[in-house]
């Protein structure tokens, strides 16, 4: 759940400077530790999750769903008349050739294998549902404990409200429009403005930390037959177990999308300063040319 956080109030501004740039204390130690635990846990949860998906690479809507029922997503393979294997992804009525990535991909020894996601993306790299589940549920405990520490501390010390909750002014269409334009032009806030997150950044972090990641836990629990007896309302919330499984998969994809954008932005904004600040907490403000 940890994303970048704890922007300094002006009181926290360190008098020291780095290369003439003002240095601020940006990330609290809780945010920094939970962030890196999350990086590890989510990466391995994703990869073990892909191995689990490969056991039945098909997704359905509703309370049930198996081979004879209509699926909205299916990964599979087919052979051409000449016997050449092809990887296929079907989304609704549309089928795409995804040879090399989905359906058919190279295994560890270079031979083509028929499998959903490729070996390099799964944990373990070979097809092993039992081991993947063991990893997945072990990591899930770490992820949940870590997320609870982040959320409870963020509520207690005001980090969520102060640094992540967008203000009414920030949510105005004009401000959001300006921020979109800034992002498209790859223009990053400088000087005083860089002390706070911009509105798109805030929205992205709020959606990931407070919506997508909790949804991963909830949809994960909804797939558990034991948990369904404990809290059947969670099942109803998603419209059944197979719907919950689909939402679990979709949210995982959205989190991957977020991570890609997040990492690209870190590189655009200055990778040493950004990654450094998530390790030491100290962030050198980009110089404001107009100041």
């Amino acid at each position, binding site marked *: 759940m940890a994303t970048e956080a704890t922007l300094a109030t002006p009181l926290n501004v360190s008098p020291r400077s780095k290369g003439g740039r003002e240095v601020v204390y940006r990330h609290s130690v809780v945010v920094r530790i939970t962030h890196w635990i999350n990086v590890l846990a989510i990466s391995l949860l994703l*990869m073990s999750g892909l191995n689990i998906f490969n056991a039945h690479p098909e997704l359905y809507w509703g309370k049930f769903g198996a081979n*004879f029922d209509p699926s909205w997503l299916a990964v599979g393979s087919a052979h051409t008349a000449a016997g050449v294997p092809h990887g296929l992804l079907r989304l609704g009525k549309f089928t795409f050739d995804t040879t090399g990535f989905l359906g058919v991909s190279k295994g560890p020894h270079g031979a083509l294998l028929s499998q959903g996601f490729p070996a390099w993306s799964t944990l373990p*790299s070979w097809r092993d549902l039992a081991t993947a589940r063991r990893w997945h549920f072990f990591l899930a405990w770490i992820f949940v404990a870590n997320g609870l520490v982040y959320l409870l501390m963020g509520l207690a010390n005001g980090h969520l409200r102060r640094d992540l909750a967008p203000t009414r002014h920030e949510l105005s269409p004009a401000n959001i429009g300006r921020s979109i334009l800034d992002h498209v032009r790859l223009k990053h806030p400088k000087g005083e403005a860089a002390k706070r997150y911009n509105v798109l950044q805030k929205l992205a972090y709020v959606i990931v930390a407070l919506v997508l990641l909790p949804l991963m836990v909830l949809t994960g629990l909804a797939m558990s037959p*034991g948990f369904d007896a404990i809290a059947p309302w969670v099942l109803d919330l998603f419209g059944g177990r197979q719907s919950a499984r689909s939402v679990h998969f979709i949210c995982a994809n959205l989190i991957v999308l977020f991570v890609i954008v997040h990492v690209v932005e870190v590189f655009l904004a200055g990778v040493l300063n950004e990654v450094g600040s998530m390790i030491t907490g100290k962030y050198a403000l980009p110089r404001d040319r107009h100041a």
Partner: protein
Amino acid sequence: MMPPRVSRRGLIATGAAGLGGLLLSGCDRLSRAPSFQNFIGRGEGLTMGAQRLLLAGQPLAPEFKPADLSPVFRANGSTLPTSPLYQSLMADGFADYRLVVDGLVGQPLSLSLAQLKAMPTRTQITRHDCVEGWSAIGQWTGAPLARILALARPLASVRYVIFHCADNLGGGPGESGLYYESIDLFDAFHPQTILAWALNGQPLDVSHGAPLRLRVERQLGYKQAKYVMRIELANRMDGLGRGKGGFWEDRGYAWYAGI
């Protein structure tokens, strides 16, 4: 100023990629180490402990309406046991079938299908969740396991109920390869835990486990033992198979399959 910055960036990217690669091959190596498997396996104990705490009031698994039934209930695992004993029972329409209940009991039992059907029955429409990820909804009718256990008068030392099955999925050298499963008394006495002899109002067919299969509704599909021939009450499971309490458990799957 520019060139060193670019190379530093490149260095970090290469370093991150290298670290990622190292992490992945490291995770594969960890996956092969039995001691590490045992370590992450502790998460399974935590999951079982947490679920059992929340299941203390013995709530029911969700039940569904006839309109929710799967049009086709997928049959998985064994669909036709090949042993001569099973084949001869099947040829007779299971007229000679007997369910044996033994082990740590005051009264060993041998029950015919007619006797099982004469017992109080429970009918429930529940969801079957395969460990692979798919689900099917079916209507099961059978005798509550609690009733059968009460007839057999379990000794006070009993902890597990073990189901010995007729299907053979193949074993290693010196192994029978016969399917078996086990549950503890917490699930054995749950009202939805039944030995089913009918699916969707029809006598249980061979592909779904005829003549008798277990339904333990708050756990995954591999716990739902088909072709049940003998129920053994025991206080330990380490003498059976590879000692993990079930055919798939012996092959790495969790004994508690509530998640």
